[in-house]
């Protein structure tokens, strides 16, 4: 018989009581694990959704002239010498230090073309990137262009030119098929003819050239200005501008959510510790008689404390494991209900280790005073309860 045998036997043979003691820990740990798992999934979801709000970095060639337009209204000052960027150099964007934070790079070429004797703005894009960036693009008819000889028309352009999906067009003398017509967006693309980048470059005589690049980037741990600087270093000939407002609001939404879940976790942990403390205190008071017997048969104060703290350690381990399991189970059930199309991020073993450590620390901390009280119990007082 050793002291630990007493703790083990108590836990093994009084499962009902122990379950009640463990409950406080399980509630605390499982709530924190659930919150962290849900927050993690939500952060990823918010991040993905916010990224769909469009570009937050714009790269244009440097120019000496100031733009003479405001809110889409051009007041003249035609610039015939429009500088352009090199398409081949664009791959360098993916070589910056924070390249993993760059999600979409959408280059464009712009220039005038003649259709049905009318001057129309042509925009050459990489459809795959552009559609991912502009989630608000909806085609009123047809399918997004798949081939080089297909174009998509803005709603206004289609109306003015009197063409519809399936029609053939001569664009500056080159035949094209209208694959789709966009629904009105209220933006510049309503008046444009949109073609695949390569085809547009050839048509405009600007092979390998780019007029502007829209970039969607998101970085939780670093400021967007840092990303902008890194890109600008690679492209000294370009002006790289961050649309700070968009990024700041992204960051704020996520930070607010994280602060909220951190706050809730702290409160839950506090309530959990209080629950463990109260139940441990109750358990020690209930065991006054037992502690009196231990002391009477020659157990030192430290022996009694060892028994109580060893029980707390074991309960902490059990509570941590059960709490982690319950938390993951709850998160697994809760995520699809809270987040549309959300899937549970999976079991994080590091979080498991932290949960068990946290439960043990909590249980030991909450039991320290009750154990001290038990150890210091006057044996004659304790025996008076006999």
């Amino acid at each position, binding site marked *: *018989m*050793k*002291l630990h*045998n*007493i703790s083990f*036997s*108590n836990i*093994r*043979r*009084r499962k009902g009581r122990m379950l009640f003691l463990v409950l406080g820990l399980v509630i605390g740990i499982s709530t924190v694990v659930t919150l962290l798992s849900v927050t993690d999934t939500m952060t990823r979801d918010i991040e993905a959704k916010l990224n769909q709000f469009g570009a937050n970095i714009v790269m244009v060639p440097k120019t000496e002239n100031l733009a003479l337009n405001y809110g889409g209204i051009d007041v003249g000052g035609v610039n015939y010498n429009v500088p352009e960027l090199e398409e081949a150099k664009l791959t360098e964007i993916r070589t910056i230090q924070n390249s993993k934070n760059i999600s979409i790079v959408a280059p464009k070429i712009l220039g005038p073309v003649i259709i049905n004797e009318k001057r129309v703005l042509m925009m050459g894009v990489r459809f795959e990137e552009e559609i991912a960036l502009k989630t608000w693009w909806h085609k009123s008819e047809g399918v997004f262009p798949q081939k080089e000889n297909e174009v998509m028309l803005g709603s206004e352009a289609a109306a003015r030119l009197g063409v519809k999906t399936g029609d053939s067009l001569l664009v500056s003398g080159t035949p094209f098929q209208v694959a789709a017509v966009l629904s009105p967006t209220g933006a510049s693309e309503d008046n444009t003819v949109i073609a695949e980048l390569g085809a547009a470059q050839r048509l405009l005589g600007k092979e390998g050239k780019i007029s502007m690049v829209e970039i969607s980037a998101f970085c939780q741990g670093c400021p967007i200005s840092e990303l902008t600087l890194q890109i600008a270093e690679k492209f000294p000939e370009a002006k790289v501008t961050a649309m700070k407002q968009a990024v700041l609001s992204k960051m704020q939404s996520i930070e607010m959510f994280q602060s909220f879940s951190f706050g809730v976790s702290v409160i839950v942990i506090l309530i959990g510790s209080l629950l463990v403390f109260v139940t441990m205190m109750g358990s020690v008071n209930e065991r006054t*008689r*037992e502690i009196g*017997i*231990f*002391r*009477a*048969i*020659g*157990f*030192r*104060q*430290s*022996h009694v404390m060892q028994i109580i703290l060893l029980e707390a350690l074991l309960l902490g381990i059990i509570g941590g494991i059960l709490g982690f399991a319950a938390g993951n189970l709850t998160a697994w059930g809760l995520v699809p209900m809270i987040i549309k199309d959300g899937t549970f991020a999976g079991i994080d073993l590091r979080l498991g280790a932290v949960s068990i450590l946290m439960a043990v620390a909590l249980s030991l901390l909450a039991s320290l005073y009750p154990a001290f009280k038990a150890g210091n119990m006057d*044996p*004659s007082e304790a*025996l008076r309860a*006999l």
Partner: protein
Amino acid sequence: MTGVKHLIEVHGLKKTYQSGDSRVEAVRNMDFFIDDAEFVTLMGRSGSGKSTLLSILGALNHPTGGKVLVDSLDIYALTAEQRADFRSEYIGFIFQSFQLIPYLTVLENVKLPMAVTGRKKKVQDRMAEDVIERVGLTAKSLRLPDQLSGGEQERVAIARAIVNKPPLILADEPTGNLDSKTAGDIMGLLKSLNSDGHTVIVVTHNPDMEAYAGRTIRVRDGECFV
């Protein structure tokens, strides 16, 4: 007092309880001695102070005044932890209402006092099995206390008290909750322990138990009459 060395010497013992304005003198100025291998009953009515006296003799209850020497050792001059070690080595307690640990088996309850002695498991097992056999419970050694009768529980309490082979056995109303036949058996068992050389002190209010003792110390209103 004579010049002979006694196992227990009590000099000018006092114990006063203070509760608010009221003051109760549970033990007043007691002087007596108990020799090695004596069987002594402490007789007295309920509230006479005999249980308080037993707890003081058992190094559990600090007296307000006076001295208790056990084997010439002034037990209340020791620190609390030293007194715990003293109890472990010198004293076997048998409490009123058995006071077994409900979640430990008979064998584990009997081995309990050895948890702080550093004895090896094999030695502990052998010593526990010996005393369990002596109290006649070998067949029930793996049962929990609530699976035993009152008399059997009392036997477990006795086995637990003697497992460490303490020189002094203190019993507080050990037959209080038993029928007269079982009570007689238990007192017989205590008598046989006394014959083996243990000093036995039994607190009781039952005059029938006097027959087993070599000597009776009567306690009345906190005073003793040897």
